[in-house]
Every structure is written in structure tokens, then in C-alpha cells.
């Protein structure tokens, strides 16, 4: 990650956003102007985040399979650690 901004994850950081919902869809790219014959799966995710009473925001992003696999692997690691606590 480019690290020019201040890190948000130091231990004292106040975290207020809560993950309220996690929506996903799995699509298939069929053709591009630069690649006419393509069958490429991709995952789109929308996170609903917000504080309890304040405005809910939607944050959406798309991943091809390698970044998605990394994303999934991170959650697995988190789950494994939480199991041990």
C-alpha cells in the first residue's frame, strides 16, 4: 500500500465505522474492446458502513480473482485468530 497518509490502524486509533451489511455479486466479463474473447469471473462487493445512528454509506469495489482470493484469505486468517481468543 502507498503509505503517504497517516496509518489508521495504530492501537490508539478511534474506529467508529461499523460494517452493517456485506453484499456481493459474481459476474463474468465476456468481451472487452481490447480483448474480444474473454471469459473472466469477477467479484463486486458493496459494504454498507456507518455509525449506529448516523448516515449509512455504501462503498463498492470490484476484484478479479487473484485479489479476491487474497481478500478471502485475510478473512480466513482473521477468523482463525478470533477462534483462539
Amino acid at each position, binding site marked *: *500500500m*502507498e503509505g503517504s*497518509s497517516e496509518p*489508521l*490502524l495504530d492501537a490508539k*486509533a478511534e*474506529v467508529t*465505522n*461499523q*460494517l*452493517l*451489511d*456485506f*453484499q*456481493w*455479486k*459474481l*459476474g*463474468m*466479463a*465476456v468481451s*472487452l*474492446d*481490447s*480483448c*474480444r*474473447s*474473454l471469459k*473472466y469471473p*469477477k467479484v*463486486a462487493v458493496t*459494504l454498507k*458502513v456507518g455509525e449506529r445512528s448516523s448516515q449509512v454509506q455504501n*462503498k*463498492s*469495489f*470490484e*476484484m*478479479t480473482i*487473484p*485479489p479476491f482470493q*487474497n*481478500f478471502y484469505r*485475510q478473512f480466513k486468517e*482473521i*477468523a482463525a*485468530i*478470533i477462534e483462539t*481468543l
Partner: protein
Amino acid sequence: MAGELESCKSLSGLLNGLAQEAFHGHPGITEELLRSQLYPEVPPEEFRPFLAKMKGILKSIASADMDFNQLEAFLTAQTKKQGGITSDQAAVISKFWKSHKTKIRESLMNQSRWDSGLRGLSWRVDSKSQSRHSAQIHTPVAIMELEIGKSGQIVAVLALWFYSCGQMGCLRGSQETKP
């Protein structure tokens, strides 16, 4: 001069340079850079059509996302054409596509992603021992920082927290496949 262009040792480097510029989005790989680095003995006016030919071939292969059978057939046809390629050159191109195909497809997909992607992800797990709003003791909380954005522009950095499985928000999804 034709002998220089036919020699294959520089062709691999040329294909790499072409791929960097056309697919992986690296700017500054000019015709002159490629010529001076890889084919310094060849004059520019001879190099130009050669480069165009190789670029055309590479783009055709990438555009059709050729499998190995299609690639064979295509390259064989190119060797039989007037002003086409030699069979040695065909072998270099074939080897190049086989080893770079996956990366090139991935780059093409990323280039055509017009919405945000996930640029970075980091996380930590805390153990919350008390909370003003609830009576939970020793609840593990995962805190995740996501950098979401389009290329060259971060549109959101989210730090979000979620409790371990039993307390996570509801999960729904929809699945969509295009014909």
C-alpha cells in the same frame, strides 16, 4: 539489416516492451527506446514496420485470447504470409504468449475496471474488555482498513469493525452471470 531483424534474441525483449506499454500501462516505452536498446544496428525506417507487425500480431493474439491450438494455427499462417514472420520468430512469440498470457489477461481486466477496486487491505484483532454500550467482556473485534479506489485515486479508506461470527451483521448476496 534484415538479418538483424530476423535474429530472435532481441525479439523476446521487444515483446516484453510491447506488452508493458500496450497491456500493463507502463508509459514511456517508445519506438526509439526499443530500437536503441534491442536493435541498435537497425535504422528507424526499417524498424518501424517491423515493430508495427509484431505489435499487430501480439494484439491479435491477446484480443482473441488464443488458446494453444489457435496460437499454433495463427502463427503458422503468419509464417506463410508475404512479409510475415520466420518460424524462429513464431517460436519466440509462442513461448512469450504461453508464459505471459495470464498476466496480460489480468491487466486487460484491470484496465477495463471503471469502478473502484481494492487497492489495499490491512487488519488487526483487538480484544475488547469492556464497552460503554454493552456488557460484552473479552469480545474479540476485527478491525479492517480497506483502501478503495480507482487507479491513481483513492476514494475511500474505511476502518470498519465487526465482531466474531456470532455477532456479525446479516450477509446477503446476489449472483449474476452474463450470457
